[in-house]
């Protein structure tokens, strides 16, 4: 047995160009659909927890049983002293993440999520700044928003002033690509200003972010803090991130819907490819009978059929990746991020080949049952 593409497989495939086009189109359609849905899922999950993942903190201290970041509840900021006095803590800072109302110049109200952080520390602040500096929020009322939401918030340039819950807010900088999973854009500001913007009592915080000392075991530190603090949960960043992702993706059903759509793409792809490969096989059934009579093993015939499926998969996948690249690129300026990391692109190639060879099983089953004696029946 040789591994090269058999002449027969190749000729069968390219003989009917219209059918080949239909097969490849089916694969392209299915792969793009799966990539977009999985990319959306990936984009959504990344977006839901991006503030946590990019916080640079090792631990998040939340109110008791807080299910996800947007549901944080205020607790006494005096706990910060206890945290800072705990062995293994390098530094810690108070942080606010809470919904509020932004008032545009035209009077329209927009829901926003205020993120209050300590600009003197490196925990919980914005990233990807394209205009302004993080330190600019040290000035009272200064805020940083993402350029994706300029239109939604009615912002055109740095220096403009708006109102958040009746408090003056001045735009001091712009970030790029910090999306909110909810429809409420993030507004970064100092912790102090955030208490005003999000109506958090002066002696309260919503989260405490902890940076462990170098070499400190995070689990040990978490246990130590949890033992010393009452009525709060101490979570590692990855735990809190996973909780938040799980809530938005599965508790709300949003992720399930996206995954179902991806599954639908897979089913559509299998059906389209199976149908066209089966039709091709049926067209050449007499030839497969002749091959069997001539002494071809079932394995030889399977190889011919699977080679056709794999070629369809590779050609379809290649074209689909080109289309997907355009879709992904287009999504960077839209409200929903579609991510296509390299491991996913490589995984999609494997999935496409599995999908196409799986689709060929129907044809293989038909050829297996083929009686070579049919060659002597005229």
């Amino acid at each position, binding site marked *: *047995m*040789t591994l*090269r593409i*058999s*002449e*027969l497989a190749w*000729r*069968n495939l390219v*003989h009917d160009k219209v059918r080949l086009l239909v097969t490849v189109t089916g694969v392209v359609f299915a792969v793009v659909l799966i990539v977009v849905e999985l990319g959306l899922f990936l984009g959504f999950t990344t977006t839901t927890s991006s503030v946590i993942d990019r916080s640079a903190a090792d631990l998040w201290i939340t109110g008791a049983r807080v299910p996800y970041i947007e549901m944080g509840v205020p607790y006494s900021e005096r706990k910060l002293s206890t945290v800072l006095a705990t062995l293994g803590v390098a530094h810690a800072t108070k942080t606010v993440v809470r919904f509020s109302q932004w008032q545009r110049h035209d009077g329209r109200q927009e829901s926003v999520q205020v993120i209050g952080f300590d600009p003197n520390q490196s925990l919980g602040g914005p990233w990807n700044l394209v205009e302004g500096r993080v330190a600019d929020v040290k000035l009272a009322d200064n805020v940083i928003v993402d350029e994706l939401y300029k239109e939604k918030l009615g912002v055109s340039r740095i220096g403009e002033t708006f109102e958040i819950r009746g408090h003056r807010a001045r735009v001091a900088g712009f970030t790029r690509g910090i999306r909110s999973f909810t429809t409420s854009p993030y507004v970064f500001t100092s912790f102090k200003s955030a208490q005003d913007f999000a109506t958090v009592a002066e002696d309260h915080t919503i989260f405490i972010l902890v940076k462990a000392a170098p070499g400190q075991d995070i689990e040990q530190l978490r246990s130590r803090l949890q033992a010393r603090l009452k009525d709060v949960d101490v979570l590692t960043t990855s735990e809190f991130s996973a909780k938040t992702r799980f809530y938005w993706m599965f508790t709300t059903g949003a992720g399930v819907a996206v995954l179902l759509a991806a599954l639908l793409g897979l089913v559509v792809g299998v059906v389209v490819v199976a149908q066209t490969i089966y039709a091709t096989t049926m067209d050449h059934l*007499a*030839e497969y009978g*002749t*091959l*069997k*009579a*001539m*002494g*071809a*093993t*079932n394995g*030889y015939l399977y190889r011919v059929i699977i080679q056709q499926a794999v070629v369809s998969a590779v050609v379809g996948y290649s074209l689909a990746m080109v289309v997907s690249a355009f879709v992904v690129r287009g999504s960077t300026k839209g409200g929903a991020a579609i991510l296509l990391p390299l491991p996913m692109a490589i995984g999609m190639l494997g999935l496409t080949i599995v999908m196409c060879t799986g689709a060929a099983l129907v044809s293989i089953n038909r050829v297996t049952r083929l009686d*070579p*004696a049919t*060659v*002597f029946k*005229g």
Partner: protein
Amino acid sequence: MALIEARELVKTYAQGDAAMRALDDVSIDVNPGELMLFVGPSGSGKTTLLSIVGCILRPSSGSLRVLGDEVTHLRERDLPAIRRERIGFVFQAFNLFPTLTAQQNVALALDLRGVGGRQARDRAASLLDQVGLGAKLDAYPADLSGGQKQRVAIARALAGDPPVILADEPTAALDSQSGRAVMTLLHELAHERNRAIAIVTHDNRMLGYADRTVRMEDGRIVSDERRQVPEGAVA
């Protein structure tokens, strides 16, 4: 020594509640250097016998030896190797692959045997040259006459260098001139290359090429006549 020895072959098919005997106690030898014809009316069992002798169909009972090996008890998955290595087939409708050229059609038979690439192409070209189609290597079946298609099919049957060639109505789809050319080629293969050629035919014009004529009726052999044909008489 006979290349194929069939003894007391019986093939029955279920027909409603009854059993129909397509072959009824048939014994026959197929010898090298001999062109034998199976003749008889439709339904006499010729094609059934050819299918069993070619290891495509299993007999209901009886014994079949191919090149000395008993094959009736072989597993289903072992039969393709017998067909591939020991028997060449020529079909009434040529059964060429329309998407492949003449050379590729012959090379495909070599590919089944694990011979590929240049070696297969060269061997295919040589075989086509031997059947007088050296100038038609790149022609597709649709561009060939019936006689030429059957010669490609014969070249394909010869690809594995089998000692036995079985042909089912090889001249039925050909005009008389092409039919004669094909029979002359098969006759030469029997006499000059010592192959055993067994042909099922309805075509009485071909009787003159036979070294041996086996007449069948109702699943039985009713006559088995040998005749020495002087060399050159059919050329």
